């Protein structure tokens, strides 16, 4: 049987803010073994996932999303000519607007995807979250889009008391305790992710996350929930434990039903000290902790592949709270020739070149 070629982005498995690509590839490898061939896609020759041969059978560099849709399509076409891609599974938020728009043209080329449409994607954007939250009867902290850090000089007088959360439109969220911290966060986030920058009221409590797959009809499949137990300096999970919170699951079901979401999704909520839930973010992709789904018997990337190819979906284990994931840092040894091939040709070295 011929292996399915799945191209997976987000191979930047870096410690402070990892992309989900490597974890997705690991899930697919463990579900399908050699029946799947994984094409790792990244933006930097130092993205660790691109060099991990056990998960990525080949690797290519892409043009940055800021180069635009046509540049991305041209690059994907080149890769597709080199080795036909059966399915593209994007794992980075910034790619989604481009790839959603390109999906019909990619499909014409024979590259399938399993993504929301542009309107669904826009509805869950951070700056439109209150609208969606109201539709789905979920609380959400007030959020404001700002264009200048001067806002923080007298924000208390406008009713925005510290601490506040300063967020990028695509990524990054930092809790600021005062105007100085908030201004520094604004500048850093604006430099990396552009304007506007979002300011969100801070909720005291515990963050819980849910990931699942929507099938486009409003149904949610295979939800896996996690409570962070240790975080990096940027608030990303370094350790977590699976939970089974029916209230959180209910929120996710209502959101996905309201969106008629298609594709992977991550729902982030804060549970306040009185047990109330506040929607913080909806990410249009699998999270970096997606390997936990394999750990609890609900391999969601495998489920996604089955849905995308119209095949029978794999059985899902009942919710299994109490499974921990712990990240760790480890070095891989990479010959200069592999690094050179990615740097100079934008693709991993062929077998003959290694």
């Amino acid at each position, binding site marked *: 049987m011929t292996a399915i070629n799945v191209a997976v982005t987000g191979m930047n498995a870096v410690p402070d803010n990892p992309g989900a690509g490597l974890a997705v590839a690991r899930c697919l490898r463990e579900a399908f073994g050699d029946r799947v061939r994984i094409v790792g896609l990244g933006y930097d020759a130092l993205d660790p996932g691109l060099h991990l041969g056990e998960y990525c059978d080949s690797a290519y560099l892409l043009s940055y999303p800021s180069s635009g849709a046509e540049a991305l399509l041209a690059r994907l076409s080149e890769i597709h000519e080199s080795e036909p891609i059966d399915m593209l599974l994007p794992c980075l938020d910034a790619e989604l607007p481009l790839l959603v728009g390109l999906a019909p043209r990619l499909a014409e080329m024979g590259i399938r995807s399993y993504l929301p449409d542009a309107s669904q994607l826009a509805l869950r954007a951070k700056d439109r979250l209150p609208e969606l939250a109201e539709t789905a009867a979920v609380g959400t902290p007030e959020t404001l889009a700002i264009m200048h850090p001067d806002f923080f000089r007298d924000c208390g007088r406008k009713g925005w008391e510290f601490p506040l959360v300063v967020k990028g439109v695509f990524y990054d969220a930092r809790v600021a305790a005062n105007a100085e911290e908030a201004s520094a966060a604004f500048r850093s986030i604006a430099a990396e992710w552009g304007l506007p920058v979002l300011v969100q009221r801070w909720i005291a409590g*515990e963050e819980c996350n849910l990931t699942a797959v929507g099938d486009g009809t409003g149904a949610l499949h295979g939800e896996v929930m*996690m409570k962070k137990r240790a975080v990096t300096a940027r608030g990303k999970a370094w350790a977590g*434990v699976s*939970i*089974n*919170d029916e209230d959180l699951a209910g929120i996710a079901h209502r959101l996905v039903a309201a969106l008629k979401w298609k594709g992977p999704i991550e729902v982030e909520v804060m549970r306040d*000290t*009185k047990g109330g839930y506040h929607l913080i973010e909806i990410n249009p992709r699998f999270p970096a902790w997606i390997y936990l789904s394999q750990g609890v018997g609900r391999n969601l990337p495998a489920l996604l592949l089955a849905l995308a190819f119209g095949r029978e979906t794999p059985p899902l284990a009942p919710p299994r*709270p*109490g499974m921990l994931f712990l990240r760790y840092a480890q070095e891989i040894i990479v010959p200069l020739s592999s690094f050179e091939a990615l740097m100079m040709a934008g693709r991993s070295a062929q077998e003959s070149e290694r």
Partner: protein
Amino acid sequence: MEKANSPIGQSVDLPKPEVLMRLALSDNGFVFDPVAGNSFTVNGTGLAILRRLQHESDLDSIVASLQEEFEVDAMVAERDVIEFAGLLRNAFK
């Protein structure tokens, strides 16, 4: 919070029964909340009280049961339950 009356008539606030019921208790004192994802450790006395609270909300019965197992007088057992209830309230706000 659930209220229960102690044998001397003192009101004791306890977390909701469904919260106590869902806790996974290990014999070594490790406690895991499968909904919140938090874990705790309790000593032998705490474990004995938690096990009873999972099935019993009447403090008279709990104190009597603790007296029987630990051979302590009612005042000591009741004080331990009230003190532990305070810890539970903080843990399950």
